[in-house]
C-alpha cells in the first residue's frame, strides 16, 4: 500500500482496523542470492538499496531478535555530516543527502528533521580546530557555519555561557544536521525492502557460516540451513562473534554506550547541541523528552547496559552545559553495543573469503550513516567494487597504515 493524503484520510475515517502489517514476516527459503546477517538499520538499508539500485531482490535479511530491537532503536537519533577527514566526509554527506530524500524514497514518514547540529567550543584552540573542520566540510560542499558567542546566544540563550571553567566561546553549526525518528527508519526500510521482494526473517540467529573451497556456500541458523551465494555481515556489536564463524579475527572491540531520556517537557531545545569541554550531546524529541548521551563506558561489553560512573559523568556534562537540566528527571536509560574499530572509522569491504562482505566498525556513529552505509554496501555486494564515496574503508588500511583516525587516538578503541 502506498501512503498518501488520500490513504491517510481514508484510514482516519475507517479507523485503525484497516491497517496491515508493514512488512512480511517471512520464513526462510532454502537459498538466496544474497543473505544479509543483521536486520538493523544498516542491514535493512542494504537490502533496500540492493533491490532499488541494483534490481537484486532474491535477498534475505536475518535478524536474531525483532526488527528495531538493536542499535537502530537505541541511539540518540542524531544525523550530521560534520567530519574532518577526506575519506570520511563523502560517505556521511552521501548519507545526509539520502536522509533528505528518505521519506520520498521509502514512502514513509521517518520524521527527518533538519533542526541543526551545534558543536560548542570553549577555547581558542578548540575554535581553531572547529574552523578547520568547518573549512574541510565546505571544501566538500557540506554546509558549516562558525558562530561566535553572540551567534550561539541567539539560538540558545539558556546555556551556561559564563561557566568559570568552560565558558562558551561559540560553536560550529551544521544547519542540515538534525534528528530522525529511529524506529521509523527501521520500519520504513523494512517495509520498502519487503515490498520489493526481500525476505525479512526475524528470530533467526546465526550459528555458523558454511565455506567450501574458499567460498561461502550458506549460513547455519536457529531456523535451519540457508544457502547463499553472497553473505553480508552488518551486525554492529556482534561483528567479532559472527566474523569468528568464518574464522576471521578483526580490529574491533565491542563496547557499551549508554543513552538517556528525561520526562516529557515543553519545547526548550530546538536543535542538537554538543558540549565541547566534555562528552555530552542533547536534543529534544517531538514527545518532549530530552534525549542525551556521552562517552562509552570504556571496557569490553556485550551486556547492553552500562554502569553508574558514566551516568554521573554524562549528567555532570549536562549540568555544566545547561544547569536548567538539573530540574528534569531522567525517565529511562539504556545501553547498546558498539563495534569500536581500531581507528574510529568503519569497515566496508570484501573479506578474504569469496562471497563474504563486511560492514562494521561504526563505533557510536552508525545511526547517521544508515542510508549511506546501506547504499555503499549494496554497491559493493552487487558490483564487487567499492562505491566512490566509500573507497577508504577497506580492512587492509590497518595493515597499510592508511588509517582514518578522526580523533588521532591510535589503536585504542575505547578512546575513539
Amino acid at each position, binding site marked *: 500500500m502506498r501512503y498518501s493524503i488520500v490513504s491517510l484520510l481514508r484510514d482516519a475515517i475507517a479507523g485503525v482496523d484497516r491497517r496491515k502489517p508493514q512488512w512480511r514476516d517471512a520464513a526462510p527459503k532454502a537459498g538466496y542470492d544474497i543473505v544479509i546477517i543483521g536486520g538493523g538499520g544498516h542491514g535493512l538499508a542494504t537490502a533496500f538499496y540492493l533491490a532499488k539500485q541494483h534490481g537484486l531482490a532474491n535477498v534475505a535479511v536475518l535478524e536474531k531478535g525483532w526488527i528495531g530491537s538493536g542499535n537502530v532503536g537505541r541511539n540518540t537519533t542524531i544525523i550530521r555530516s560534520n567530519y574532518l577527514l577526506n575519506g570520511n566526509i563523502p560517505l556521511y554527506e552521501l548519507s545526509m543527502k539520502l536522509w533528505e530524500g528518505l521519506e520520498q524514497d521509502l514512502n514513509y514518514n521517518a520524521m527527518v528533521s533538519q533542526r541543526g547540529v551545534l558543536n560548542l567550543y570553549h577555547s581558542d584552540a578548540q575554535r581553531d580546530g572547529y574552523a578547520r573542520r568547518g573549512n574541510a566540510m565546505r571544501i566538500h560542499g557540506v554546509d558549516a557555519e562558525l558562530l561566535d558567542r553572540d551567534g550561539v546566544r541567539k539560538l540558545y540563550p539558556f546555556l551556561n555561557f559564563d561557566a568559570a571553567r568552560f565558558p562558551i566561546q561559540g560553536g560550529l553549526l551544521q544547519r542540515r544536521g538534525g534528528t530522525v525518528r529511529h524506529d521509523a527508519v527501521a520500519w520504513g526500510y523494512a517495509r520498502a525492502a519487503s515490498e520489493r521482494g526481500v525476505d525479512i526473517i526475524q528470530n533467526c540467529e546465526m550459528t555458523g557460516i558454511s565455506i567450501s573451497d574458499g567460498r561461502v556456500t550458506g549460513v547455519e541458523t536457529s531456523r535451519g540451513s540457508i544457502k547463499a551465494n553472497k553473505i553480508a555481515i552488518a551486525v554492529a556489536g556482534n561483528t567479532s*562473534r559472527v566474523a569468528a564463524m568464518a574464522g576471521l579475527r578483526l580490529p574491533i*572491540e565491542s563496547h557499551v554506550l549508554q543513552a538517556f531520556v528525561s520526562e516529557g517537557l515543553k519545547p526548550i531545545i530546538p536543535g542538537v547541541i554538543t558540549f565541547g569541554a566534555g562528552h555530552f550531546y542533547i536534543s529534544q524529541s517531538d514527545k518532549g523528552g530530552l534525549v542525551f548521551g556521552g562517552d562509552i563506558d570504556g571496557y569490553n561489553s556485550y551486556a547492553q547496559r552500562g554502569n553508574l560512573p558514566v551516568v554521573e559523568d554524562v549528567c555532570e556534562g549536562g549540568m555544566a552545559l545547561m544547569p536548567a537540566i538539573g530540574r528534569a528527571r531522567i525517565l529511562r536509560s539504556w545501553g547498546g553495543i558498539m563495534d569500536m574499530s581500531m581507528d574510529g572509522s568503519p569497515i566496508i569491504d570484501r573479506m578474504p573469503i569469496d562471497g563474504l562482505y563486511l560492514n562494521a566498525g561504526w563505533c557510536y556513529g552508525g545511526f547517521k550513516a544508515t542510508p549511506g552505509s546501506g547504499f555503499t554496501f549494496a554497491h559493493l555486494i552487487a558490483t564487487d567494487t567499492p562505491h566512490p564515496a566509500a573507497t577508504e574503508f577497506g580492512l587492509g588500511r590497518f*595493515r597499510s597504515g592508511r588509517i582514518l583516525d578522526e580523533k588521532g587516538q591510535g589503536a585504542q578503541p*575505547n578512546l575513539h
Partner: protein
Amino acid sequence: MRIKCPYCGSRDASEFSYLGDATLKRPADAEHDVDGPMFDYVYLRDNPAGRHREHWYHGAGCRSWIVVERDTRSHDIISVEFAFSETIR
C-alpha cells in the same frame, strides 16, 4: 561495577582505567615485521562475548596494574590479580 583490587580491596570501577585484552603478548624482535605478529598484536582482538582477561590500572588508588577476568555479557568479575604476578608465572 566494583573491582576488588588485590592491594586496596573492593573499589568503584571509576577509580580504574581500562587498557584492554591482557592475553596479548608483544612479539619479541618484531619491530620491523609490521605485517606479521606485530600487526596482529596492535590491531586484532578476540573480543569474546564471555570471559575476558583484561588490564586495568588503579590510578586513583595503589597505582597497580591488575588483570581482571570478567564476563563481558554480565560484567561479573571472576578473578583479579596483580599484572606482575602473571609476569612471574
